[in-house]
């Protein structure tokens, strides 16, 4: 893994929406927008309707994924989104 990057997986039941490395992730958490950077403390949060923004590590592209709800779990430098 690239230094200063975190693993990100975005899944819904039908398909895998994203699987790769990112430098940071912005997500619509229940208490407001949250930013996850590499080596963040372990956290689990409920998502509200909004957009997840993934800043890719391999390029400058930002990937936006619209969500209606779900859960985000971050531990061991890996963020997993389970969408509804």
């Amino acid at each position, binding site marked *: 893994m690239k230094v200063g990057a975190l693993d990100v997986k975005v*899944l819904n*039941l*039908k398909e895998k929406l994203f699987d790769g490395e990112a430098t940071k992730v912005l997500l619509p958490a229940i*208490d407001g927008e949250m930013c996850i950077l590499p080596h963040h403390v372990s956290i689990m949060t*409920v998502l509200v309707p909004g957009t997840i923004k993934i800043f890719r590590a391999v390029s400058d592209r930002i990937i936006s994924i619209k969500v209606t709800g779900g859960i985000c779990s971050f531990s061991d430098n890996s963020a*997993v989104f389970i969408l509804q």
Partner: protein
Amino acid sequence: MANLKELRNKIGVIKSTRKVTAAMKLVAGVKLRKVERKVSESREYAIVINRILTRLRREFLETVPELLSGREHVANVMLIVFSSDRGLCGNFNYLIQKFVTKTVHGIRSIGHRVHLVCIGKRLFDGLKNSFSMGVSFELVPDFYNADRLYENSVALAEKVVRSFRDWNVDKILIVSTKYYSAVKQVIETKQLIPLEIEPNHDETITIFEPTANEILQQLLPQNIAAQIYQSALESIASEQSTRMTSMDSATRNADEMLYDFTIKYNRLRQNKITQELVEVISGAEAIVER
């Protein structure tokens, strides 16, 4: 001994049956490949959701929600069984029917009532007259509609949660055929409520936003929908794989029959020709002798 016309008809029938079975094998193969990809993706989702639940479970050592732990006293058990809507898939439905009958008898023998939720017409038709007391039935119609499978799974999950909360269902099980490969499928029972979670030895401290309880409240129904959807996909994959295998052996059988009947037909035809020739020659000889 069959005459030539009968044999010709038989060969014609076998040829058209062979065409049908060969086409069905191809169609089942294409459908299987499509659903195989979905199965592997939904498996990953189910694994991740289970891992999150394992992490959450540690937070609830004393007050575990009922949807996770189930009820202490069990009187009614709901069995969600996945079979198929269509036949011509070998012993796929028969094996499930046999397994369910055994499971239901097992549950009944310890005094619990059983409510069977049948997904797939075949099983419903096969089982509805098999049990008498203490077993109720329900068929979920048109569940396997390819465009609405996900929506149907979510609707069934909502119904399952409702029947646990409002009615007297205390324990919920899923019976479906797990798809391992094109040659290996195994019928398995999965416990939905109470949920079976592996013990967690991870000591990492996790922050929960807003609270672990609220995350769990959202995750549990989502997990039930995921388990139902995954079981449905595995069942479809197993059905298509069994259909492919059985249609393949049907095609091979048709080939063998076609070979046998063609040889028989040719022999009979040759006999007839020889006989006619003998008649013509002996007739000609009789004329010459005169």
